């Protein structure tokens, strides 16, 4: 009895403090989760009556939940396919790009600071054909580096992931074997490796497992002080992901951005373009019945496209190119 009274009083206390806030539920990609969580926190500070609760459950989750209607909007690094969009019956899904990010090959090889990877090598590692760190292919790209004679522990995603989508999209472009054997999707039949849940799970596993390699969004490697390698881009240069190289990858796409913003920028041309870069999108319904929610969401999107972009660089993302923002603001009007 006493226990119940205690909880009821705690509940009412909690409820009264939060009573006036409107909760908007969103779920999806872990790739942009750090900047989304920062944005939603900042937005909540400026608008105390709006709480946007974002759950990073993976892009597959974002797509699924917006299709089922269990969240108010979703987030994904994989643009929805036509087939997926047709399954959403109540409204049309609008893709709003938010930031640009890079996926880096992060690894835990003590004693070796920076490793270069070519696309074919990375595909070989993830296909299981390249098994050791001192494989000739790796040695060729890293002259002078003391690569150890250890087995490579491969780490991939165990959940439905847009990061996996972008990564497999890139591997399919650089490796015909990957394209036919495994394919491109948020969830694939990985030939080898351990599965981690979310970008956090993969970085966690790599951090704790010596001689392992994983693919994560740049911010996860940076925040966890993990080493990450340079990738050989289409122009033949080894580049590490950062603000400039990721922005360069989007430079070409910005000019020819399709009207629905669904585009892949992996293996982009450009001297300094980072090859495993991607936009990430918020999946917004074009019809929102609740007027307060509609205003909150459109307010947030407007803020995100303008003031919010200032947060990108500090968290190792690249802001949207200006032509893209202009086009997006026009899409805002489509939300009824």
């Amino acid at each position, binding site marked *: 009895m006493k226990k119940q009274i205690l909880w009821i009083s705690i509940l009412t206390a909690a409820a009264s403090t939060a009573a006036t806030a409107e909760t908007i539920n969103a779920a999806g990609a872990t790739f942009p989760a750090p900047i989304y969580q920062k944005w939603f926190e900042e937005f909540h500070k400026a608008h105390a009556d709006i709480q946007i609760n974002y759950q990073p459950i*993976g892009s597959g989750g974002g797509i*699924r939940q917006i299709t089922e209607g269990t969240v108010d909007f979703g987030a994904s690094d994989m643009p929805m396919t036509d087939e997926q969009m047709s399954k959403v019956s109540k409204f049309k899904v609008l893709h709003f790009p938010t930031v640009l990010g890079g996926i880096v090959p992060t690894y835990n090889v003590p004693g070796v600071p920076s490793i270069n990877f070519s696309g074919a090598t990375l595909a070989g590692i993830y296909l299981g054909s390249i098994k050791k760190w001192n494989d000739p292919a790796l040695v060729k790209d890293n002259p002078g580096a003391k690569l150890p004679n250890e087995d490579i522990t491969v780490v991939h995603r165990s*959940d439905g992931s847009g990061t996996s989508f972008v990564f497999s999209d890139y591997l399919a472009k650089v490796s015909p074997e990957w394209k036919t054997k495994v394919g491109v999707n948020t969830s694939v*039949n990985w030939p080898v490796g351990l*599965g981690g849940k979310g970008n956090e799970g993969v970085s966690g596993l790599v951090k*704790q497992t010596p001689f392992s390699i994983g693919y994560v969004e740049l911010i996860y490697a940076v925040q966890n002080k993990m080493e990450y390698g340079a990738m050989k881009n289409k122009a033949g240069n080894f580049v590490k992901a950062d603000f400039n190289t990721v922005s360069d990858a989007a430079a070409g796409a910005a000019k020819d951005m399709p009207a629905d913003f669904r585009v892949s920028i992996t293996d982009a041309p450009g001297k300094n373009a980072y090859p495993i870069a991607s936009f990430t999108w918020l999946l917004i319904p074009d019809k929102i019945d609740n007027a307060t929610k509609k205003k909150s969401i459109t307010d947030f999107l407007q803020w995100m496209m303008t003031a919010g972009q200032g947060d990108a660089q500090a968290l190792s993302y690249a802001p949207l190119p200006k032509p893209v923002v202009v086009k997006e603001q026009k899409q805002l009007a489509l939300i009824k």
Partner: protein
Amino acid sequence: MATVAVTAPPQSQPRKLVNFFRDGDQIAHLVTFLFAASVFLVTVFLVYELWIHSGPSRAKFGFHFLTSKTWDPVADEFGALPFIYGTVVTSFIALIISVPLGVGAAIFLSELAPPRLSNSCTFLVELLAAVPSVIFGLLAIFTLVPIMRQYVEPFLKHTLGFLPQFEGPAYGVGYLTASMILSVMTFPFIISISREALLAVPREQREAALALGATQWESTWQVVVPYARLGIIGSIFLALARALGETMAVTMVIGNDTGIHTSLLSPGYTIAAMIANNFTEATGDVFLSALVELGLVLFALTMVLNAAAQLLIIATTGKGSKQP
């Protein structure tokens, strides 16, 4: 003195109905029956919902689902065999570790330990059963996995590496680590129930064996334990049923790989871990219904085991087992 008529006047039909309900007992009977029946209805509803929501997957794959090894979301091809394999292997190995330890401890607590020590130790072991699965997982990630990766698995590879069961790199996560954490989680069931079964063996059995010149161990192992074997086996079944359905601790240390591997050091998957990792994000109806069908398979497995365990335990503690 006039006698008071004892019989009540004949009643009309509506009156009988009203009186039926005015009787508090009948209302209480009805109300409690409804609540009790709701348990039955909910369970039936559970099976029904599992059946319905796994429809697309059952229609597409049929029984092939249980034997197919492929789990390919790109091609929409799903098969349950890797997960059934992982579930069975981890539970089986967990029992190989925990049954000897558990039965041994139960023997000590029932035969050798003074009653107070026995009771307090049993109390402590039963508290272990209350520890939530996620806490076991938390401990496993940060304590067991590094130990497995740095000491145990290399040692096993060094000594038994010629066996296919111990091939491959020492990840630290995988079937073996999951089995170890499962074995810890199953101790309490085996110890507690086996101890009860052993305590239920009549004193005369022990005394007869000792009178015939057996050592205490011989008396225990050759007379008492066989007498209680149904109860002990029942406890093993219950432990197995628990291990099969365990989700959190396993998913945190099994490595999440959707293949079938003979090596115990390799990562794998169990049914419960698969569902937990993928349910919120299954894109596509077939994928989601395949996960629900996995849940149905797991449900069926645990149902059969629980029934077997109940029967065995009833047989022991209800009647008494081996007749001389």
